[in-house]
């Protein structure tokens, strides 16, 4: 995998030959305190490193804590135990070097597409006129040049995701976190958005953590696919490399033989977890403390 120059490594984690990982989760446990006084351990003992330039997908059965993991990397959620390192430094508070693409609509409905993208530059102190210019440029890049003055409710689901993508990328974050961003979209739109994402990402290859429940999407997009076990106390059960050539077209790549082989391998381990999750079924909510 071709990696470009990375930020200077800090002393301390010298063991990693290729410098500090963009995101390093070490022994992360996350336990939720429920309203009724009970506890729910979502994930347990997670060790995961995502290096700069790497596109890593996280797949797993529903409710296995994939999003929880992403929130920990974003600093939206503090782990109950373990460490979160960002480029070799322990994370405290929000992760200022990351951008986050949410599954649900996260645009401000009272702002137009342009204003929504522009506002992302305000915390960085970019002057108004430059912000306007850059926001228009980004909206053009995601194919919304003629939609700048539309309010979110006037846009389709796919178009709103494009605005969110522009809003996130305009800040040029070093780490991209995406939580099933194309989940609510229809199949065709997902494919178009997938290709758009690959196109934008391949220009400057940031570290990217992509949560999805769609294995095909995960393989088509990523360099690595991480499989999580069924919750509660979900962990990582497998970590696969996807050695498919880039640039890829995510519609075409699904037809290739190599794709099928990788798919078969990963599905073999994912299927066990999906079945476990189904077997627990509705009982999952009733699980009180830590089972293991």
């Amino acid at each position, binding site marked *: 995998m071709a990696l470009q120059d990375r930020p200077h490594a800090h002393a301390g984690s010298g063991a990693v030959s290729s410098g500090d990982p963009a995101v390093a989760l070490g022994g992360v446990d996350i336990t939720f305190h429920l309203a009724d006084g009970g506890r729910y351990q979502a994930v347990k003992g997670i060790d995961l490193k995502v290096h700069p330039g790497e596109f890593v997908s996280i797949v797993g059965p529903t409710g296995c804590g994939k999003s929880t993991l992403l929130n920990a990397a*974003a600093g*939206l959620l503090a782990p109950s135990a373990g460490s979160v390192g960002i480029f070799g430094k322990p994370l405290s508070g*929000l992760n*200022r070097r*990351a*951008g*986050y693409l*949410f599954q*649900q*609509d*996260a*645009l*401000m*409905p*009272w*702002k*137009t597409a342009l204003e929504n993208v522009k*506002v*992302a530059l*305000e*915390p*960085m102190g970019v002057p108004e006129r430059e912000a306007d210019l850059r926001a228009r440029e980004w909206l053009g890049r995601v194919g919304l040049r003629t939609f700048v003055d539309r*309010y*979110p*409710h006037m846009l389709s689901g796919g178009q709103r995701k494009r605005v*969110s993508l522009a*809003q996130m990328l305009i*800040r040029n974050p070093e780490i991209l976190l995406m939580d099933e961003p194309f989940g609510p979209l229809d199949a065709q739109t997902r494919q178009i958005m997938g290709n758009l994402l690959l196109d934008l990402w391949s220009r400057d290859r940031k570290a990217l953590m992509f949560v999805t429940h769609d294995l095909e999407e995960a393989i088509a997009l990523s360099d690595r696919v991480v499989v999580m076990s069924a919750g509660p106390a979900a962990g990582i059960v497998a970590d696969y490399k996807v050695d498919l050539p880039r640039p890829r077209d995510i519609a075409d790549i699904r037809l290739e033989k190599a794709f099928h082989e990788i798919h078969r391998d990963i599905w073999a381990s994912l299927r066990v977890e999906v079945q476990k999750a189904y077997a627990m079924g509705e009982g999952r909510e009733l699980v009180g403390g830590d089972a293991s």
Partner: protein
Amino acid sequence: MKRMKLISLQILVMLVFLAIWHVVTTTSLFGDVKTMQFFFSTPGAVLARTFKQLTGGDIYYHLGITLTETVLAFVIGSLAGILFGFAFARRELLSAVFDPYIKAANALPRVVLAPIFALWFGLGIWSKVALGFTLVFFIVFFNVYQGVREVSPTILANARMLGMNERQLFRHVYWPSALTWMFSSLHTSVGFALVGAVVGEYLGSSAGLGYKIHEAESVFDVTGVFSGMLILAIFVIAIDALVTMIEKRLLVWRPAQSSTTTA
């Protein structure tokens, strides 16, 4: 075509109403004409009086007074409502402690406060503004409180991830959200500001529309009472149209839907 039909039907309702009123008060079918006219006046007399008043200058002085009171009650009530709504929404303890008192105060029929306000603020405009204030304040307060509390957690988390500080969050997220809720109750709060003003005037004052109606009533001038009510209705419709215009301007970003109101 449909619209024309609707408007003609609406006009028909008015004509039938006026015709019945006219027949009841100018013929002896339902009793003595003099007695009927004493109690109900006649549509002709009311319209004539209204026309005379609207073409004279005196009524505009009274309208001006009522308008001033309404605007003051609305502005002061809204400002206080926004301020307290924000404070209570962001400070859990504050809202928890004051919750029963706010509920109790809101449950009180505001009319009983009118004499007290007349005592405190005199018979001038301020006792009416105070009465309108107590009505407007709670509507705006509850809406702003709700607006701040019900900001979508995703929008908030997204704004935080974009690096916004507290001030920027306020400006781009909390404030617009609270305003939305406030504007959705704009018709109600403006209406209540007017109710406060007119009721206050009615109960004790020397100027304003409520005073005009009360004055006519005290000399058994039924024509004057109805004429005052008609002018009040025209006034309310005009203000409401203005509010609708402002609302459309400010809430362009919203999908078309019926506005929610808290009464």
